[in-house]
C-alpha cells in the first residue's frame, strides 16, 4: 500500500502497530506508580531535595518552586508509567531521577537570570533551634559563617556546587552524581577535588573578611 508521505505500510503492519500500541498502553497502566507510593517517595525526599535546591540557588522561595516543579514532573512520569517512576522500580533509581530533574530545573533557572536575592536571616535564626551544639554558639557567628558559605558556594559554577551537594551532603557516589549532572564518573572525581579546593579558597576569603578567620 502506498502512502502519501513516502512511507508505505501494509494493512497487516498497521494492525500489528495498533496492537503494539494497545499493549504498550496496557503495560503503562499496570506499571504506573500508585499515589500512595508516590506520597511515600515525596515524604522521603521533599526535604533533602529542598535542601539540595537551596544549596544550588541560595533562595528558599525559589527552591520551593523548583521543588514543586520537580514533583509535578515526577507525578506526570508516575502516571504515565515512565521509568523509573513505575511500580516496583528501585528507589535508588527514583531518587537519582528526582535529583536529576531538580538539578536541571535549578540550572535552567540560574541560567535564565542573574538573581537579585533578598537575603533572609530567618533561616539561620530559626534553624538554630534544631541544632544542639549550635544553639550555644553566638548568633552573630552563625550568621557570619552562613553568609561566608553562601557567598563561597555562589562563586562556584553550578556544576561544581551540585557536585559538592550531591556527594558531600547527599551522599551520592561519583557514579550516581555523574548520572545526575550528566557527566562521567571519572570526571566527577576530578570535579569534586577541584570544587572542594575552589570552595575552600572562596570560603577562607569570605571567612577572613567576615569573622577574621576565627575557627
Amino acid at each position, binding site marked *: 500500500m502506498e502512502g502519501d508521505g513516502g512511507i508505505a505500510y501494509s494493512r497487516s503492519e498497521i494492525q500489528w502497530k495498533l496492537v503494539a500500541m494497545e499493549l504498550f498502553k496496557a503495560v503503562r497502566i499496570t506499571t504506573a506508580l500508585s499515589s500512595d507510593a508516590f506520597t511515600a517517595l515525596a515524604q522521603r525526599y521533599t526535604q533533602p531535595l529542598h535542601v539540595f535546591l537551596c544549596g544550588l540557588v541560595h533562595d528558599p522561595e525559589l527552591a520551593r518552586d523548583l521543588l514543586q516543579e520537580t514533583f509535578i*514532573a515526577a507525578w506526570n512520569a508516575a502516571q504515565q508509567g*515512565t521509568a523509573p517512576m513505575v511500580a516496583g522500580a528501585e528507589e535508588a533509581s527514583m531518587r537519582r531521577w528526582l535529583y536529576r530533574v531538580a538539578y536541571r530545573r535549578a540550572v535552567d533557572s540560574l541560567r535564565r537570570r542573574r538573581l537579585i536575592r533578598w537575603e533572609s536571616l530567618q533561616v539561620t535564626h530559626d534553624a538554630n533551634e534544631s541544632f544542639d551544639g549550635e544553639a550555644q554558639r553566638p548568633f552573630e557567628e552563625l550568621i557570619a559563617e552562613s553568609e561566608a558559605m553562601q557567598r563561597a558556594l555562589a562563586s562556584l559554577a553550578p556544576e561544581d556546587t551540585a557536585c559538592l551537594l550531591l556527594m558531600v551532603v547527599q551522599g551520592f557516589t561519583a557514579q550516581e552524581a555523574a548520572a545526575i549532572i*550528566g557527566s562521567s564518573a571519572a570526571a566527577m572525581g576530578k570535579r569534586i577535588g577541584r570544587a572542594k579546593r575552589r570552595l575552600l579558597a572562596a570560603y577562607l576569603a569570605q571567612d577572613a573578611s567576615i569573622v577574621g578567620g576565627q575557627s
Partner: protein
Amino acid sequence: MNPTNARHPSGPDCTRLAPLLPQLRQGTLDPAEEAAVRAHLATCAYCQAELATYDRLDEQLRAYVQRFAATAPSADEVVGLAIAQRSSAHPEMDAENHSRPRQGRQSDVITYGENDMDDPSNPYGTYDTTRTVPYPPHSGRQPSHTPRRHLVLATIAAVLIIGLAASLFALFARPSSGPTHDSTPTVAAQPTPTVQPTATPQPTPIATTGIVNFGHPCSTSGYGITDYVQMGDLQVGKVRFSLAYAANELLANLDSSKPYQLPDNLPKPPNPPVNPETSGGNGYLFTICNTSSTTSHVIASVAVRIAAFAPYSGTLNTYMFCDSFYQRPYGVAGGGCGGGLTFDEQLQANFLAKATSGAQVTATQLRTGRTGPTGPTATPLPIGLGPGQMLVIALGVTPPTAPGTYTFAFGLNYDTVISAPISTMEPTLFDSAAVKWNGGNCTKPALLNQIPASDTTGRYVCAP
C-alpha cells in the same frame, strides 16, 4: 575555620599527593592513589592538617544547607499540588484512568529531555524519554503562577483579617479588669471530660511552659498519618515510623564468604522491620490535634511500654535499602538516603538495658522545633495546645539490649489523664549485633571474583 597551617613544610610528596586529598573522603581515588595518599598521610603533618581542613569544610557545607531544612514544604503539600496540577492540566487522562495518549497543550507545556538513567545500555543519556511536563512557564519569581503562591497569599490575607478581627474584639469586647490573652500564656483551660477506661486522674493541674495558639492549624496535619485515636477533643495520630530506615532481615544461614544476590521481592517496607534508627529522638512520629474550637488542653508527656517481647538468637543478617549493592558493570551502586524531620517536640524514651515485657518509661525532652517556615517554635512539654492547633511529636526509643522482637505501645499523658493508649507499633526486631550486608563489602577481590562477569542485572551484597 582556619586555613591550612602553613608552618608545616610540605615535603617532596606533598606536591604530588596533596591535590588528591579533597577526593579521599569521596571514594573517587583509584586504589593505588588512595593507598599512596594514606601512606603519605601517616607521616606528613602538613597533609594531615590539610585533610582536617577539608573535613571541616565538609562539615560547614552540611551545616549550611541543613539550615534550609526548616524552610522545606511538607510532603503532603507538594504531593497535593502536584496531583492537582496534573488533574487541572490533564482532566481527560485522570477521568479515563490515564489510558489516553499524552497530548500536551502547546500553550503551557515545556518539553524536557530527562534521560532514563537506569537503562543499563545507556547510563548517561541518549535514551529518548522526552517528557512533556505541564506547568506554568517559570521565567522568574515575579510571574510565578504556582498554586502554592496563591495559597500563601490567601493565608496572609486570612491572617490579616483574623488579626484585624481579633484587634477589634480585644478593643471592644475585652473585660476591662481581666487579664489579656498574652499575659497568661501558661494557663491552659480546663479540659473537657474524656472517656478513657484506663485513665487515672492526676491530683493537680499541670503547669505548662507555653501554649501553642497559632501557626499550627490542624488543617496542616499530614505527615502521612491517616489513622487517628480520639481522646475527647484530641485527635491523636497513630504512631508510625518516620525516617527510621528499618532494614530487611535476610536469611539466617547465609555464607559470609560468598556474595548474596538480593531477591527482587524484599518487602518494602521491611517485614519485620529490623533495627530501625530510633536514637536521637528520631524514628517515630505522631501528631496531636485539638479539635475543640474553644478549649485548650495540656499535653504533658509521652509514655512507651514494651507490650510484648520475643527473644532472638542466632546470627541476624540484614540489608537496608539505603545501603549500597554491587551490580555489574557499575560496581558499587545505589544506596544513600536523605531526609530531615520537622517537629515541635522531640523526645527520647530510654529503656533500661535489661527491661523486658511490661516495662514502661516516660520519654524525656531532647529539643523543640518548628513545623513550618511561618510557625512558632514550640516550648518543651508540658505545653498548652490551643483550640484547632496541632502538635507534631518526633520520638526515639532506646530499646533494651537483649536481641529480640519488641512491640512498643505508646501512651499520652494529657490534662488529668495519664497513659491514654495511642497505638501499638508492629513487632520490630532489634539486634545490635546484626551483620549488615552491603555492596561496598563486595569489592574485596575474593568476593568480587565470585560475581559472574556476565551478570549485569543481579544486585549483590556481601558481609563485612
